[in-house]
């Protein structure tokens, strides 16, 4: 969908919901806010000493460490054979495994090739083969499994990723090293459904000959995005858009030597820059912040108390010159230590190239992407005594339901 089409969709939405007038304010805001892209968030365990929990109940995005070879994946060479689920061009056993490994390396490389991030090729160790049939599990080691049954699979589930994050320093999972940071990902496993006889996955070399199969590289690149801490994006062209390409097709363009991150959209790149900020970068340091608040405060939800702005709006930055969508975020909250999150309609889009002009628009999450697809970026913003016994009341909050019916107007800063 082009931006023009999106505008039309938005205009239809505007016509549909005229009861609520929203004011979009561009103001500077110097606290933690919903940042560009949607990340899986966790609230540190403030019941623990500040030295291991940071003492703040402000949400922290899940993330990997980026030191040399800190991100390591092993993958199971056990492949479904009856029927064969992973299709390769090379039919020999060793050739087939080499081709799959090439896809894994390529997919990782797509994410580490984004300019202006601390996530580089040096952050990722070469993938390691393992012949275990049950490689995936909460053992502190990232794994990719193509033929491991899991209780979570039901008819219709193609693949999923389990990401386990620590809410304080010093948490150890299996044989992995203890967490060195709050929000550190301790284990991320990717499962491909091995038991649906109608579903196959093809490497890029084999896709053309198997047009009814799914592109392994596109799906794996998306799932690897989850292992890096990303939730879903509501931008159509993004790799992290929750819906994969149709069988026989692939997302974006194939990577090339000149454009190794070609399958990603600008939205994916901006998210990577925000999540894995490179302190030495001087180009992608722009930030847009503001508020989405209702003209009529009575339209805000009465429960939970304290909601003062629109929560759950999809806020998008568009390059004013090219019209390209550069980044989108789920806005509506901010947080200042010691927390908790405030649902005041704040949004922030960071990681933007400087010396460019941007247009901002906001839309409800009632289009191609709904709140269910980004639930991990929404529901994990708060903890309280109901979710965690003994949670301090002053750092408690309850996440409101996303506002799905609003219209927008803009006004300049007060």
């Amino acid at each position: 969908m082009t931006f023009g089409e999106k505008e039309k969709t938005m205009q239809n939405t505007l016509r549909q919901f005229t009861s609520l007038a929203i004011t979009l304010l561009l103001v500077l805001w110097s606290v933690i806010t919903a940042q560009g892209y949607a990340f899986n968030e966790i609230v540190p365990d403030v019941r623990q000493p500040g030295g291991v929990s940071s003492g703040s109940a402000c949400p922290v995005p899940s993330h990997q460490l980026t030191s040399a070879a800190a991100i390591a994946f092993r993958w199971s060479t056990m492949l479904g054979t009856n029927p064969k689920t992973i299709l390769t061009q090379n039919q020999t056993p060793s050739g087939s495994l080499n081709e799959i490994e090439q896809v894994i390396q390529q997919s990782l490389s797509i994410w580490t090739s984004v300019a202006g991030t601390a996530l580089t090729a040096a952050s990722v160790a070469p993938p390691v083969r393992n012949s275990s049939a049950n490689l995936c599990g909460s053992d502190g080691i990232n794994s990719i499994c193509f033929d491991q049954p899991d209780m979570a699979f039901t008819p219709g589930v193609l693949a999923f990723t389990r990401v386990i994050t620590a809410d304080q320093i010093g948490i150890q999972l299996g044989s992995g090293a203890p967490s060195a940071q709050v929000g550190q990902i301790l284990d991320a496993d990717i499962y491909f459904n091995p038991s649906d006889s109608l579903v196959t996955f093809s490497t890029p070399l084999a896709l053309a000959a198997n047009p009814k199969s799914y592109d392994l590289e596109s799906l794996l690149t998306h799932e690897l995005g989850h292992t890096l801490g990303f939730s879903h994006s509501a931008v159509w062209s993004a790799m992290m858009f929750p819906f994969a390409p149709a069988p026989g097709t692939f997302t974006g363009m194939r990577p090339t030597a000149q454009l190794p991150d070609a399958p990603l959209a600008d939205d994916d790149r901006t998210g990577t820059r925000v999540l894995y900020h490179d302190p030495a970068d001087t180009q992608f340091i722009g930030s847009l912040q503001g508020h989405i608040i209702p003209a009529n405060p009575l339209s805000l939800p009465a429960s939970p108390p304290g909601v003062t702005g629109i929560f759950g709006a999809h806020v998008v930055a568009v390059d004013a010159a090219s019209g390209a969508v550069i980044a989108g975020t789920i806005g509506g909250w901010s947080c200042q230590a010691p927390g908790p999150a405030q649902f005041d309609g704040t949004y922030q889009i960071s990681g933007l190239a400087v010396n460019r002009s941007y247009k901002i628009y906001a839309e409800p999450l009632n289009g191609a992407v709904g709140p269910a697809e980004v639930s991990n970026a929404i529901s994990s913003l708060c903890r309280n005594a109901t979710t965690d016994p003994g949670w301090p009341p002053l750092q408690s909050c309850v996440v409101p339901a996303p506002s799905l019916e609003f219209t927008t107007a803009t006004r300049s800063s007060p």
Partner: protein
Amino acid sequence: MSYKDRRRVLWVLFLIGLALLAVVAQATTLVRLRFQDLVHHSNSIARVRCLRADTRMENGEIWTDTTFRVLSRNKGYLPEEIDVRQPGGQFQHLHSHVDGTPEFRPGEEVYLFLAAHNGNQFLIVGWSQGTFRIHRDLRSGGETVTQDSAETPVFDSASNSFTKSGFKNVAVNAFEQRIHREISRESE
């Protein structure tokens, strides 16, 4: 319209077509299930009310078991209370995220399409696809049903176009009739 304008319009249409072909048909984690497939794969279908959710570690993985009160049954036998198991949740200092799993609030009423798992424990068929949220209009009292994956576009190779076949704001009566129709068709 001049020849040049017509050519420009055709080019725009061609590019839009190309863009659409590159766009989605299936969820990353989900294969699109038709409504009849959902009914067919479900051991039970029921209207339920969310009571509470518990997270537990079992077989080395974190699971969230959400307890529902069964309000009415559309297919299969169900006890008065059921547990629905989903991957992910928070256990001690570990937070397990699995994108695409539906979440429920206590008091919320939904229709669930369920696959039997273990005793009173069930899985939701197709995750968001087997989840239909009920919305009650406060003025009229009328109830409508919306599928969590209602907006998922599906590529129809027969018509060579994208369609949205999910349920959005469908009256409860019409929704239940549709379920019964599919069950009847299945048993024929």
